[in-house]
């Protein structure tokens, strides 16, 4: 079992309240996932000459040391903003390969540092522990943004570690949280590796994120990628998916895993259970419904 939540603002005036709403929803989902928790927040997209990367270190990580090390290895300007044992790095890039080279250097040469997200707006923070501890650790309530996903995990398919925690991001600004279990993830992971998709863990949900990244890289729209996922992913799932400008929800055709959607003029919220949505301002006036099996619900900013 896991708990998933998502929030997407239609009214930009509310963006400063995103972290607080997300934190309240996440803590309500503690019973569904006390192992670990994580969030993906989309805010303040960087310019087209920059790339935003979230790094995740051990608890004793010294970001000042890392900053020096980056300055020695990366040829262009960099800013680094620590958030507990994570840090948001903004790279100036002069060619498309710059960010890839940076990621390869971190992955291959820097010990105990993982990359949780790469894109222009996305930042991912995740950690073992109860959701309210994770909320405090990253000062989630003070975060702002346009949309966000959250996950509370009760592991069934793979180990309880920070690396195995959700959200998973396998492509630029793409992120997925999952409640359920996939049965053909090993086969799909092998197929996707051959297509050049990189995986950090043996987690089944990371494969779903990788699958969408692969479809999008082939030129599919998010809706087309999700249509294809209904055919190719075998197992149980409720997914909430974030892209730079969009937000989507999909349940498998059997639909064992719960989901509730709520929409007002100001926001769209998704959760495993209504009690997470009950916390939100004006939820008493929201339109509330259960997403139908195998039907894609998506919202996108123009």
């Amino acid at each position, binding site marked *: 079992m896991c708990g998933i939540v998502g929030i997407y603002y239609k009214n930009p005036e509310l963006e400063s309240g995103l972290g607080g709403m997300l934190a309240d929803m996440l803590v309500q989902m503690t019973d569904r996932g006390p192992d670990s928790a994580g969030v993906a927040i989309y805010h303040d997209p960087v310019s087209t000459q920059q790339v935003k990367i979230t790094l995740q270190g051990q608890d004793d990580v010294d970001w000042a040391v890392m900053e020096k090390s980056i300055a020695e290895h990366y040829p262009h300007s960099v800013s680094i903003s620590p958030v507990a044992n994570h840090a948001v790095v903004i790279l100036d890039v002069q060619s498309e390969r710059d960010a890839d080279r940076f990621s390869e250097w971190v992955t291959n040469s820097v010990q105990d540092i993982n990359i949780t997200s790469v894109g222009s707006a996305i930042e991912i923070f995740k950690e073992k522990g109860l959701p309210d501890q994770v909320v405090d650790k990253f000062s989630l309530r003070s975060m702002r943004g346009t949309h966000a996903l959250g996950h509370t995990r009760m592991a069934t398919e793979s180990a309880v570690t920070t690396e195995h925690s959700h959200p998973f991001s396998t492509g630029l600004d793409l992120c997925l949280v999952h409640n359920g279990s996939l049965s053909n993830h090993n086969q799909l992971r092998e197929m996707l590796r051959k297509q050049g998709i990189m995986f950090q863990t043996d987690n089944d949900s990371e494969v779903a994120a990788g699958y969408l990244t692969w479809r999008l890289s082939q030129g599919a729209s998010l809706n087309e990628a999700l249509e294809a996922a209904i055919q190719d992913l075998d197992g149980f799932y409720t997914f909430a998916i974030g892209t730079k400008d969009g937000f989507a929800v999909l349940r498998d055709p059997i*639909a*064992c895993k*719960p989901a509730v959607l709520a929409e007002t003029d100001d926001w769209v919220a998704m959760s495993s*259970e*209504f*009690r*997470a*949505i*009950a*916390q939100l301002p004006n939820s008493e006036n929201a339109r*509330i*419904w*259960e997403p*139908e*099996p195998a039907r894609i619900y998506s919202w996108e900013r123009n």
Partner: protein
Amino acid sequence: MKFDLQDNEVRALNQALHTEDAANASFSVVNPGGKHNVAAGAMFATSVDVHGHVGYYCAGMNQNATIQIHGNAGPGLAENMMSGRVEVNGNASQYCGATAHGGLLVVRGDAAARCGISMKGVDIVIGGSIGHMSAFMAQSGRLVICGDAGDSLGDSIYEAQIYLRGSAASLGTDCIEKEMTASHLEELAVLLEQSGIEHDPASFRRYGSARQLYNFNIDNVSAY
């Protein structure tokens, strides 16, 4: 008696419903906030009004009580109900009325997948539509659907009756349309009246078991 679930544990409400003082009493429950197990295991002829949306297993195992939810209900509404009446003004999530033995369950809106799965004598009236695999292995009781049904309605059904006003995306294995006789029209009219939902009984069709699946067939002996 008024119960505010913002200040009280659900357990306090349920314990109050499990004492004899609850017989013929009225409870008004506010701020349910999607909590689980609201008014579960009621045993006496209590009237319970819940103002708001509830989470999993609301009104489970109900006996004798009349429980009205002024909102939506999460998964497992009135699971294994024995008697009494449970009514939801909004929608119900999956497997409402599962394995229920008796009483009346009314959902004025829609019910999701697996409505009335393995029902064992309950009457269920759905004002809207229901999801897939509803009345799977339903043993007895009656399921009335005023809207449409999802895939595999009545799969592997035993002796429950299904009345459907709209159409089913597909019928499950061994579920067939059956003749609507005068006595069926009569019992359907009673169910609709009890539920306070107005439709002409003649606008429904009846479905039930073809009885090909659950009877032993000597021709299949080699398979055992």
